[in-house]
């Protein structure tokens, strides 16, 4: 007999099926907790993966002018292409507003797995230099947790996901439980050794959620290259084919797709969540679903939008906002600083046949660390992603046979691009736009964010330090870029429901539970207190697992 999933009783509703939602669904359902997993988009099938389809088979060879019409914002993401653009939201259906002079690029997916389908996969641990940054330099707040609290959960996540990388023993970037590292090119080894010799900085192979050997039932990477178009061997980590799959296998998890969550509902007259209201993406019908607890894992901006659109027991808008801090302190890593050039003495020619390594090198943070001097112009620090190797010279000058030959012969290029910490400032905030609504009638977000003087000074330093490292390796034709990219372009939105021990100075506790409501959790990047400079997904997943394990204990003690 068919049972309507909406009339079932659930223990927990998880909103969002990406990196953290997938983990929440897996962890809770495997502990016997009944989960309803809500995803705003549709299911995804490997049949739509296109990583092995050459661009010439596409009508517009992957730079489709059609994307311009429906995805003018999403198309700014390198991964939004003619191959897969319908994984990304339709910007016309999903509006948001910004002040005229403060543009913000909000790149997002609505499909099972969310951004894990197209993410950059770089996976780095944070250290106490990050968790206790306030203690180090006096800015902002410390996290209510330290590295030793999170470390066991990094272990759990890494063991399951499979992170390839090399241990370096560098205090600013703790080592993890790595699969074998990917290989470096000749130029990268040369660059790494010169930079170490002359400047004492550490360069390591990118730590990435791509399997370098068979792991947990998934196959090792076959190095075709374009992970963001899917992977038939599931060699990079994406939630639909790992955590969500495991959750569904338990029989304790019900997946409800096309569920665009509007707000959280409280029990009548009580300060306790009863469930959520969502709009069916296809039929536009409004529906309700009930549970003993609600976890938002819709990504920082979307999760905070749901909380801001929810009513408290007293009837005011903004659930969990007694501190007035819900929506405040938006962060996105500052980017824009880059350096590139040509390495001399390498004669390898580029190949169109691969194998292609969807990973690069990583330059570990060296500014304002525990054992380096304090920089005069900025606090915190940055790391770089980069690569060196032979590349086709599509920028060759001239025309005719000479131009054609120059393209094929190629150059041996090197480039590095910085990701810097973004300070949490309360004047970077999100609120609900009083008029604007999305295609489902749900009030839209207003996003107001700029990068500040600290980020500007940091990116200038990163550009010159980048050139300095390229110089150290004897690179020629060095070019730098130091202007800040538009906020949002790092696609690392964080903060706006920050965790802390003091309910007056934070939105959630260290278990991501709203201080104000005992059974609502913000388990994604929204809970970050500071951004660090590391790519955040690994830390988000570790915090989600830790928070779920705590929630499981509370269920066992009948506290929920």
């Amino acid at each position, binding site marked *: 007999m068919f049972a309507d999933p909406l009339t079932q009783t659930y223990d927990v509703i998880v909103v969002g099926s990406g990196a953290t939602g997938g983990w929440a669904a897996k962890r809770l359902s495997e502990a016997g907790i009944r989960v309803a997993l809500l995803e705003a988009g549709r299911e995804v099938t490997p049949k739509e993966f296109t990583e092995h389809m*050459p661009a010439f088979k596409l009508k517009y060879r992957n730079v489709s002018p059609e994307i311009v019409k429906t995805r003018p914002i999403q198309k700014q993401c390198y991964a939004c292409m003619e191959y897969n653009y319908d994984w990304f939201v339709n910007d016309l259906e999903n509006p948001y507003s910004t002040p005229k002079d403060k543009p913000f690029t909000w790149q997002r997916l609505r499909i099972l797995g969310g951004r894990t389908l197209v993410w950059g996969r770089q996976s780095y641990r944070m250290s106490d230099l990050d968790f206790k940054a306030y203690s180090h330099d006096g800015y902002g707040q410390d996290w209510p947790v330290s590295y030793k609290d999170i470390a066991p959960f990094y272990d759990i996540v890494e063991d399951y996901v499979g992170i390839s990388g090399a241990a370096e023993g560098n205090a600013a970037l703790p080592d993890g439980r790595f699969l074998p590292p990917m290989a470096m090119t000749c130029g990268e080894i040369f660059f790494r050794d010169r930079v170490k010799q002359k400047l004492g900085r550490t360069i390591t192979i990118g730590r990435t959620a791509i399997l370098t050997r068979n792991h947990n039932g998934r196959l090792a990477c076959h*190095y075709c290259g374009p992970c963001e178009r899917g992977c038939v061997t599931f060699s990079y980590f994406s939630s639909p084919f790992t955590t969500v799959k495991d959750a569904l296998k338990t029989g304790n998890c019900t997946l409800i797709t096309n569920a665009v969550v509007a707000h959280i509902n409280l029990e009548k007259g009580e300060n306790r969540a009863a469930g959520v209201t969502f709009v069916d993406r296809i039929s536009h019908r409004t529906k309700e679903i009930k549970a003993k607890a609600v976890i938002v894992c819709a990504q920082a901006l979307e999760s905070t939008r749901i909380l801001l659109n929810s009513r408290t027991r007293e009837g005011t808008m903004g659930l969990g906002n007694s501190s007035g801090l819900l929506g405040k302190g938006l962060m996105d890593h500052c980017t824009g600083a880059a350096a590139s050039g040509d390495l001399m003495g390498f004669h390898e020619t580029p190949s169109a046949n691969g194998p292609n390594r969807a990973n690069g090198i990583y330059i570990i943070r060296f500014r304002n660390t525990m054992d380096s001097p304090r920089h005069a112009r900025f606090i915190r620090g940055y790391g770089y992603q980069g690569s060196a190797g032979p590349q086709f010279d599509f920028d060759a000058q001239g025309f005719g046979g000479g131009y054609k030959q120059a393209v094929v012969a190629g150059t041996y290029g090197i480039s590095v691009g910085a990701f810097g910490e973004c300070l949490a400032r309360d004047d970077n905030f999100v609120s609900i736009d009083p008029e604007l609504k999305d295609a489902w009638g749900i009030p839209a977000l207003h996003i107001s964010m700029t990068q500040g003087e600290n980020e500007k000074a940091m990116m200038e330093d990163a550009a010159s330090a980048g050139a300095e490292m390229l110089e150290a390796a004897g690179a020629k034709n060095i070019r730098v870029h130091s202007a800040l990219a538009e906020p949002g372009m790092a696609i690392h939105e964080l903060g706006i429901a920050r965790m802390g021990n003091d309910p007056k100075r934070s939105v959630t506790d260290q278990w991501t539970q709203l201080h104000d409501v005992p059974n609502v959790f913000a388990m994604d990047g929204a809970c970050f207190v500071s951004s660090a400079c590391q790519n955040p997904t690994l830390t988000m997943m570790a915090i989600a697992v830790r928070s779920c394990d705590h929630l499981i204990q509370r269920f066992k003690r009948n506290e929920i």
Partner: protein
Amino acid sequence: MNRRELFRQALLGAAGASAAAVAGQARVFPEGYDASKELARADWKPVFFDNHQNETVIVLSDLIIPETETPGAKSALANRFLDELLAAETRETQQSFRNSLAYIDGEARKRYKDAFIHIPKENQIEFLTLLAYPHTLETWGESSEDNPGHRHFEDLKDWISRAFWTSEAGMRAIGWNGEMPHGVFTGCQHRDDAHNGPETGSQSNKG
């Protein structure tokens, strides 16, 4: 019309097959889908270019990326792909492309008294050579030479290059063997100290 309808039409127009076009369903490319086959049809006609513009793009394709030991942009049908792409582009982009073609023709008429496609090949090459490089050399002091021709040339070269290097012929010209890249990325295969030389990363020590 929604985007799925646009996509469905794109597929019907291109390959006579349809991907799932129902809201909430996956967008799946049909088995064997290959839009480039449509460009090679014998009865192909331009939809964006007029005949003169089409001929001009063909001649420019052949000059900028000629046939060498590998096929060039003319036989790769760069003009046909650009016609299709530009037809879907914004008005501004369309106008900018037309302006660049018009500049080439206008200057050819001034210098050689005929449209670009009708002047002798040596004149075509001579003219493009003048346009192909930035005029920024400071031989006699300050350089502030206005050179819109270089801009127009670069614009046309970008379009033609994109059309060629993304075509099957273009991919094969850079050595593509027809398979999707795969294998194991082995990286540097030299001895540990092979890159410790004094000046550069010379990789002479194979093995």
